[in-house]
């Protein structure tokens, strides 16, 4: 279970949000909504421990995440708005390295299966440099077919995806929640995702 209590975020000398809190339990989906610049990405980065909250605490299984990173991070998959791909490496190499770094020792076959799940297997051996924006996004998101972690934090996963890929991803997210996973997501698109328990958190400027 992930609990956020009374979070506040300050960037520069501007207060982005304060008193933000929620509880997310197994099978739960949390939409973080808000206009551009209201701090959605900052909130997600905070939940990953990349950004220290100005105020408030985040708990994973009742322990503070910053004191318990060793147990928290293996349970976390974060896909930010940067894809985390190296231009000079192929799609396959990129995905494999990301997965291994996150602690999933994947084989070439598994990596290829993940790429084909999101419909990008034919680009597996192309360097990321030549891929389009949407294709790069797909390579980054193929991680979701390799990870074992329970909590997924996704920043605008549907941005740059076409209709078919959006549907595939939404189905995958539904499966994850059906298996007791949790997802926190920001999006501007209206995509239907199946979850036992859906919450919405709205950030206001």
């Amino acid at each position, binding site marked *: 279970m992930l609990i956020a209590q009374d979070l506040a975020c300050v960037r520069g000398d501007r207060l982005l949000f304060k008193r933000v809190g929620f509880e997310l339990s197994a099978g739960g989906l949390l939409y973080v909504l808000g206009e551009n610049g209201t701090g959605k990405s900052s909130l997600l980065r905070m939940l990953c421990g*990349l950004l220290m909250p100005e105020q408030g605490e985040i708990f994973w299984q009742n322990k503070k995440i910053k004191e318990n990173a060793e147990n928290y991070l293996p349970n976390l998959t974060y896909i*930010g708005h*940067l894809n985390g791909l190296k231009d000079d*490496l192929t799609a396959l190499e990129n995905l494999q390295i990301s997965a291994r770094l996150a*602690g999933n020792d994947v084989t070439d076959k598994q990596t290829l299966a993940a790429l084909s799940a999101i419909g990008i297997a034919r680009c597996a051996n192309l360097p990321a440099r030549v891929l389009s924006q949407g294709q790069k996004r797909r390579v980054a998101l193929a991680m979701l077919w390799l990870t074992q972690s329970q909590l997924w934090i996704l920043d605008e996963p549907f941005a740059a995806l076409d209709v078919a890929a959006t549907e595939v991803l939404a189905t995958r997210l539904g499966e994850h929640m059906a298996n007791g996973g949790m997802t926190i997501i920001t999006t501007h698109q209206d995509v239907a995702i199946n979850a036992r328990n859906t919450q919405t958190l709205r950030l206001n400027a």
Partner: protein
Amino acid sequence: MNTRKTNAKTNAWTSAWLTVLKRDLLLALRRRSDIATTLFFFVIVSSLFPLGIGPEAAVLSSIAPGVLWVAALLAGMISLSRLFAADFTDGTLEQMLLAPQPLAWLVTAKILAHWLVCGLPVVLLAPLIGLQYALPNEALLVLVYSLLLGTPALSLIGAIGAALTLGVRGSGLLVALLVLPLYIPALIFGAGAVAASQHGMSAQAHLSLLAACSLLSLVLAPLATAAALRISVE
């Protein structure tokens, strides 16, 4: 049960570390021009001095230790600003921060890759360059030893500077200002070792101190680099 758990943990640490090392070496292999820049810089800078000063062997061999060491420092430094910059802009640095292993541990793999790509070639090339300076054989050997022991310290200390200036405009010059003063001990002991052997003295004391510099930075630099990276990524 407990040992199995420890073993699994050790394996995970090694595997993540090797992943980072292999990735950086593979990237260096795909972008060979970056390695070439460092090497050519070293070759050109150290060849300019004999051309400018003239062919007098006595003068050249007396300035050789200092000049070669300074050239090695500068060559290592020009590649420093690239150490984390690409990872920062493409988001792979965030992945490293979110890896279950400590960042300081993974950073050592990146620094080792940087040394293998930018430090080791300079060490191997140094005796050839040293010939231009009419250095005797034993001094050439000491030069190689001193660079071999000292350049790891340069990569390690440089990584702190690279991490601190991440995302800052004009970071290349800022790294130089931050890092060059910290290179002074390595420069003194490194050049001192070569000079000592030229004067028929033992270079051992200098080399031991140089190794101590490297070991000390091996312990402290990864921690400092990791802390600096966390701040830069915020």
